[in-house]
């Protein structure tokens, strides 16, 4: 994903409150417990245990999860497509 910027992605995640549900390295507060912790995301497991872990799929998922994976718990989030690519880029920096 050219142009995607992980540092920007971290700020987007802090701003919209992803950490209300997920504990995310690099975001000090909150450290939500409702969804899975995201440390080690870069290891490349399936997204939500079901989707192929590809940058394009991930960027679509963090923006509008129910559209990509009907029935998933994660809701659509108020971010643009570009911001979604940045978020995906940040997630791929989270080593185990």
């Amino acid at each position, binding site marked *: 994903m050219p142009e995607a910027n992980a*540092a920007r992605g*971290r*700020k987007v995640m*802090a*701003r*919209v*409150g*992803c*950490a*209300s*549900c997920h504990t995310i*390295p*690099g*975001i*000090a*507060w*909150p*450290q*939500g*417990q*409702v*969804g899975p912790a995201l440390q080690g995301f870069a290891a490349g497991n399936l997204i939500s245990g079901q989707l192929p872990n590809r940058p394009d799929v991930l960027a679509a998922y963090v923006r509008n999860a129910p559209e990509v994976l009907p029935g998933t*718990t*994660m*809701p*659509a*989030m*108020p971010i643009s497509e570009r911001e979604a690519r940045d978020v995906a880029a940040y997630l791929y920096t989270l080593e185990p």
Partner: protein
Amino acid sequence: MSRPISTRSSLESVFKGWPPPVLDPAGPYAGSISVLSWVLFAMAVVVLGVVLAALGVALFGGQRLKSRLGGQAVIWLGGIALPIVVLTALLVYGLSLTRNLGTPAPPGAMRVQVTGEMWWWRVAYLDSSGKVALWDANELHIPVGETVVLELRSADVIHSFWVPRLSGKLDMIPGRVNLMKIKADKPGSYGGQCAEYCGGPHALMGFVVVAHEPAEFRRIMADRQAALASKPPSGGRGEQLFASAGCAACHRIAGTPFNGMAGPDLTHVGTRRTLGAGILPNNRGTLMGWIGNAQAIKPGNRMPPYSVLPADDIRDLALYLEQQR
């Protein structure tokens, strides 16, 4: 990795004015306090300069200067007479400058009761006879250019109401009503924070004041009044869950049978800028995170975690709540 950031430090993008700058007044009542602060600061700089000059003389000055500085006259004049004159002048100046804080509000001014609770704010808009016209929580709407009187109370321990751009701090003391006036000169949102340690999640007890143009403000209040009379049941799953999961034991939604008063009123929760008392942006994701486990977000607050509910239920509750506008 760079320094960790937090969702609260990012709230500026959700509502303008976070973190609230302390010396950037947006109304007359914060304005006089801000001027006084700068004057005191300038005086302190002058006094520091004089003291450092005297110290310089004492350490490095010639014998003649030193003996003059050590004389009785300097002690009487510089140590007693000057402070009495300067501090008295400052007191008179300060009292006259901040006189606007103590004068009664214009008759007919809008009144709102704000009650500090562990760890959120109960808001009650009063009508002209002093009765509660509308309930809300954690967010206060006011008209630009009008003085609004806040009746500050506490339901439990001492809190302190502080919206730095609109006024100074005033304690909320159990059993007392303290009056505070606020006025905003420009439309916008102004962040606030509990300023008296009140236990556990005190640091996560924030507040938002939203100032609207008067016509817009009156439209919002009229809409809310009208909605009280007619809030048709949605008949949706979220509404049933709100009843069956017990949310209504603590939360009220006007115009429905849900009338719990222990926690924040949720009648307009969908319009709020923040969740959890001024700490999270308000969107479907943060709503779900808060409902699912508010304890992970604001440890010690009085809302239990609802991780016993299936994920679908949490989502449907969030969908129902975001419709409460």
